């Protein structure tokens, strides 16, 4: 994912001050890369707004979208983290059908450990919307695709079988 690659660049950049490169240059470079890597509008304060980042499958499905991450605002934070607002993450199968859709008003993505977390709400649903998981306060571990929801978890499952009157 392009955005994640960018975050990875930021993480590497965090180590360079030890070699004597001024921090402000690194931040400037990160913001520049940020603007180049994602389709976004950058505000005077350096925030990216209305951004979208797309990842594609590898060959032979390189023309197929694997995931699409979008947000209303992304703000780089210390330590290589990103504060993302109005997050929407869509994951697709190789045939293009949506598999998972995640919405969160706000979350912090930490590239150093590959986690995303928030004290706010989360809504996750499968492609057809028949399985919905929502809760408040979450931690997503990207490495092993493990999601923890801390509070008020509700899973709703709609099955095709019909109810009697």
């Amino acid at each position, binding site marked *: 994912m392009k955005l994640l690659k960018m975050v990875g660049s930021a993480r590497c950049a965090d180590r360079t001050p030890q070699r004597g490169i001024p921090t402000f240059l690194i931040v400037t470079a990160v913001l520049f890369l940020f603007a180049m890597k994602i389709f976004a509008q950058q505000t005077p304060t350096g925030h990216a707004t209305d951004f979208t980042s797309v990842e594609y499958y590898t060959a032979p499905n390189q023309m197929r979208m694997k995931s699409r991450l979008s947000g209303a605002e992304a703000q780089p934070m210390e330590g290589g983290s990103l504060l993302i607002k109005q997050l929407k993450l869509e994951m697709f199968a190789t045939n293009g059908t949506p598999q998972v859709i995640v919405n969160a008003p706000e979350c912090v993505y930490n590239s150093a450990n590959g986690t995303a977390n928030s004290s706010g709400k989360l809504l996750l649903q499968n492609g057809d919307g028949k399985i919905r998981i929502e809760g408040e306060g979450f931690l997503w571990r990207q490495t092993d*695709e*493990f*999601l923890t*929801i801390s509070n*008020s*978890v509700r*899973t*709703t499952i709609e099955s095709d*079988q019909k109810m009697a009157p």
Partner: protein
Amino acid sequence: MKKIYFIAIAALCGLSVRAQTNLIAPTNSAPRVTHIDSDSADFDMNARTAIYRGNVRVSDPDMKLTCVRLVADLPQSGRMNHIVAETNVVIDYTDAKGQTTHATGDKAVYNYAVENGATNETVTLTGNAKVENAQGCLTGEPITWNRAADHLTATNPKMIYRQNLNSTPAETNLPTANTNQMSEPK
């Protein structure tokens, strides 16, 4: 260990725990909705499992379940086919006639599968397992409720019959019950 089958228990023992016939004969276009609520939960997307913890409540149109911990396989779509509920499991089921059945145990395992057009849907209770309704109370270890076939199976069962709603339940043991209401396993 002596194993006794409770076959078509609604008819034989009066412990009417009918399987939901609506699964077989759809009569309404509304989808079946199941809710699982808990204090917290973990979702392993690789293993496609969900672990619900703390004050777990499951509800669907004809059943309520509460427990402390619940592990479920997450389906790609449609209904869950394997659920394990643990610690202080309480199940309240209401059949199509409005009759309620109350079941408790330390652990309940739900399995659902359709093979060659046949539905296999069971709930197995273990650990102080007990099933009761207006007609009586059944204990056993384990008690398996076959929802699709509409019968209960219990190992080392013990029955307490309620003569009527105003009388004290009369306790009996299974040899008596077995003579006219239960069958030995083949």
